[in-house]
């Protein structure tokens, strides 16, 4: 397993050293959070009803932002080719890259989400559900992002195509994510049906996305 974690560690070190991938995602997240009330109006009660959905959409866009940097640098400097010659199958390489992307951008945002939700006057009862839902959901987001990055690696204007490819795949994560956050009927029961379905989506993409991503990378190689 050290091979797997050596790749995850290297990718994390690279995102932190080169202009902070996580910092960029957080900056983008904050910027979108500022624009929403300015556009929709400062009425707190209205914003409160809006908050879970707005936070989830902002998370989706923030994760999407750094997607094309998952495979592109390795493709450009020839590392990707050598990775196919390593002892570890390409599927696990894709999984390692998704995990690194998740730990770098998705997870920090998910943990900060309640704090940032304060800006949208998020109901404090929702702090627990939204953090749990976002932690689970952001894993699925990173896995699907990795798939999109693998499909568009090496293509000109790959960044544009990625959003068209992956956003439709993000729809179920968004629906069940917001539903899981809003599943609060009085007492926030954390493990309602939506949360379980959200977890199911994450686990399914944990298995399927790397396989598809590896196939896509192989298609690019030959």
């Amino acid at each position, binding site marked *: 397993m050290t091979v797997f974690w*050596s*790749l995850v560690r290297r990718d994390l*070190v*690279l995102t932190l050293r080169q202009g902070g991938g996580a910092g960029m995602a957080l900056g983008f997240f904050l910027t979108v959070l500022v624009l929403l009330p300015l556009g929709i109006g400062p009425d707190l009660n209205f914003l409160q009803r809006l908050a879970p959905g707005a936070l989830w959409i902002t998370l989706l866009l923030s994760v999407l932002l750094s997607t094309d940097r998952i495979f592109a640098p390795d493709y450009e400097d*020839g*590392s990707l*080719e*050598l990775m196919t*010659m390593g*002892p570890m199958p390409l599927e696990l390489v894709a999984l390692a890259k998704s995990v690194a992307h998740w730990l770098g951008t998705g997870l920090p945002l998910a943990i900060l989400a309640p704090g940032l939700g304060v800006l949208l006057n998020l109901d404090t009862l929702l702090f627990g559900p939204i953090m749990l839902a976002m932690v689970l959901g952001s894993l699925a987001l990173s896995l699907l992002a990795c798939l999109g990055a693998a499909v568009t690696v090496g293509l000109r204007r790959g960044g544009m195509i990625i959003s068209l490819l992956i956003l439709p795949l993000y729809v179920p994560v968004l629906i069940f994510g917001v539903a899981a956050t809003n599943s609060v009927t009085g007492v926030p029961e954390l493990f309602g049906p939506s949360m379980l379905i959200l977890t199911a989506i994450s686990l399914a993409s944990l298995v399927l996305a790397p396989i598809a991503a590896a196939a896509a990378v192989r298609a690019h190689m030959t």
Partner: protein
Amino acid sequence: MFSGLSFTVAQGEGLLLEGPNGTGKTSLLRILAGFGAIEQGALELKGADEELTIGQRAHYLGHQNALKLALSVEENLTFWANFMGQSVSSSTIADHLGAFNLESLSSYSAGLLSAGQKRRLALSRLELVSRPIWLLDEPSVGLDTASCALLADAMSRHMAAGGLLIASTHTDLGLTFKNKVNLGDLGGRAT
């Protein structure tokens, strides 16, 4: 690309690929490394355990150096060693850097290195992780004479230890190759 090509390379031997540009030298090396498909014919590796592909038993060095500029020289080598399943101590890394006299630069970030130094860093990766087959595509490009001599030493050490070497080059690598293949006169069209 090319057809009617067949060759065998025994242990401890080298095969030199010659021929003008565009006759498929690089493609042959990439196919051997597993990056391409062959229409007919087969590639076999006798005497090795079966499930590993040729690529997983080989080192491939193309025109790119596969180096991360943000990482330091030592971090680059440590990563590749760990990724290829071999944990290495920093002293072994220092020795391998010494083989291409880069040992004084181990803590510098790879981005500061010149093209020649980056090439030597990529070459030092070959001996760091021991693999029987070396697929080198014009390894001496960008190297000064002193570094070419170091490269020749590394290649001869590899073959002496029973490794296989398949290399394409336009300049003299300072090695005598037992068998050569000229892809030019094999009807290799410049595609």
